[in-house]
């Protein structure tokens, strides 16, 4: 039996006393790609933020085991050090801190190893080339004035530098042009080949053309109502969530 990387059981989450996640079960093994789809407001970002440890999200029940260890009471930085990464749906702008400085600080914190200036510059340059990002982004302030797509690419740059065990991509493909989606997918595949796991939240099948997801889950009104393979994504494309909902009520 493979050792599970992430093991979520009966996870219930409140925002300001309102229950948003109503009992989620999800297991992810090393090297697996999971996809979560679902209608707006279903709770996908809530799950992503909760896994990363945003203080606004209160876990009222259930467990989040990561590498066999309960992480639900850990602060976000501790989770990052264990290997959790979230690519934000809406990345924050941080004026006054350049992409390069920030990533060096971040890599130092996550890896626990001081990142030397010159080797880090090289690493950053090669990763940026992979993502077809211009050099000049390294010296720009973090996300400040970046276009929607540039912000998303910057999230993926951070992911590939930090090499997390679990990357959660919250609608990273929204706002990316078709070429950028392919480039991002290549990066995700590289991580997967390194036996790292990815949880992809998306509304579109475009990204899935390039990935080979092991599982697709439908998150609807705070619950995973169906799990399956890639065919599930096609079904959603055909019938929409309303159609799938209708199917459930018939069964």
């Amino acid at each position, binding site marked *: 039996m493979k050792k599970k990387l992430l093991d979520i059981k009966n996870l219930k989450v409140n925002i300001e006393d309102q229950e948003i996640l109503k009992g989620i079960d999800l297991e992810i093994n090393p090297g697996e790609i999971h996809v979560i789809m679902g209608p707006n407001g279903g709770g996908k970002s809530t799950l992503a933020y909760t896994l990363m440890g*945003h203080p606004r999200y209160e876990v009222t029940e259930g467990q989040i085991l990561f590498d066999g260890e309960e992480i639900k009471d850990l*602060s*976000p930085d501790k989770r990052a050090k264990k290997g959790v990464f979230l690519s934000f749906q809406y990345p924050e702008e*941080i004026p006054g801190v350049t992409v390069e400085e920030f990533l060096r600080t971040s890599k130092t914190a996550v890896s626990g190893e001081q990142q030397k200036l010159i080797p880090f510059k090289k690493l950053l340059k090669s990763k940026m080339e992979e993502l077809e990002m211009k050099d000049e982004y390294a010296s720009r302030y973090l996300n400040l004035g970046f276009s929607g797509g540039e912000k998303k690419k910057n999230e993926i740059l951070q992911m590939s530098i930090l090499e997390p065990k679990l990357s959660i991509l919250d609608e990273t493909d929204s706002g990316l042009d078709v070429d950028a989606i392919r480039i991002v997918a290549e990066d995700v595949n590289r991580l997967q080949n390194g036996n790292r796991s990815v949880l992809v939240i998306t509304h579109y099948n475009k990204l899935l053309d390039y990935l080979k997801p092991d599982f697709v889950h439908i998150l609807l009104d705070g619950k995973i109502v169906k799990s399956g393979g890639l065919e599930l994504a096609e079904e959603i494309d055909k019938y929409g969530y309303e159609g799938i909902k209708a199917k459930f009520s018939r069964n």
Partner: protein
Amino acid sequence: MKWNRIGLESLTFPEPKKYTKEYLSNLEITNINLDEINELSTTKLEDFMPKEAKGLGKDFTSYVEEYYNSGISLHVPRNMKVEKPIILDFLMDDENPMVIDRNILVLEPNSEITVVINYKTKTQGHCFHNGLTKVYAKENSLVNIIKIQNLNDKSHNFDSNLAIIEGEGNINWVSIELGGNITGSNFTTILNGDASQGNLSSIYLGDGDRKLDLGYSMIHKGRKSNSNIETKGVLMDDSKKVFRGNLIFKKGARTSKGVEGEYVILLDPAVKSDSIPGLFCEEDDVSGEHAASAGQIDKDKLFYLMSRGLSEREAKKLIIQAAFRPVVDKIPSEELRNSINTEIERRIINE
């Protein structure tokens, strides 16, 4: 004497003492004539400093005029551009616990100079600083004055800075307030000539029970004169701060423009932060703008940084250093910039 704005019941000036240490280390690198300097030290600047330039008030400034124990007088001749900054380093200790510095700078037309004054303590005992800096910048001259204050937590720090700027002259003040128990700091710039320009950039860090009273005034008299005040601060623990920023447009200051902004990050609920912007116009055709904001560090920004492995304190430090950076970067010495950044880091990380 009472110091109401920061709730100080009484304040008495100590018996003046000597400051015998060397504080001017690099004058020889400049090509300024020492004779000129000495000649000026006897000049009374009241002759050309108008009445409205009060600094912290008569009690403070006349104490300096009477008892000053240090300071420089520089007379920069016409067309002379002094390339290297003049650096004054005051390091108070138990034998020299007082700096009462009087500095006079006169810039003849077309001249340029940069002066950095660094006030520090090397003792845990009470130290006292009361200073007065007067600048007369004539036509088309440029003067940069950078003041860095990091006295220990028991010390008192008072500083009055006055400048009068003639046509197309420029002054750039930079003020870094990191230490002291009580700080009263005043910068008054009189933009006397047409198209004269005054800029003031300052940062402060309030922690422990530090109290700061910052008063900045830009007095526009010449036409098309320009001023800009930008202040950024952090308050934590039980610190208090009063900020008073005045843009004053006198009759005749037509088409002049003044901008002031004060931004403060409040890290703890017990801090007290007052901001009193003032706009006084005797002339219609002028423009004065002020902006202010006071608040905590955005929770979502913190979460974003923490999700990349930074602890809460590291994340806060990063945001604060980023806010301070444009001001710190104006200091023309890497050594000083680094020591300021290290100090900020120390205070915020090992609070």
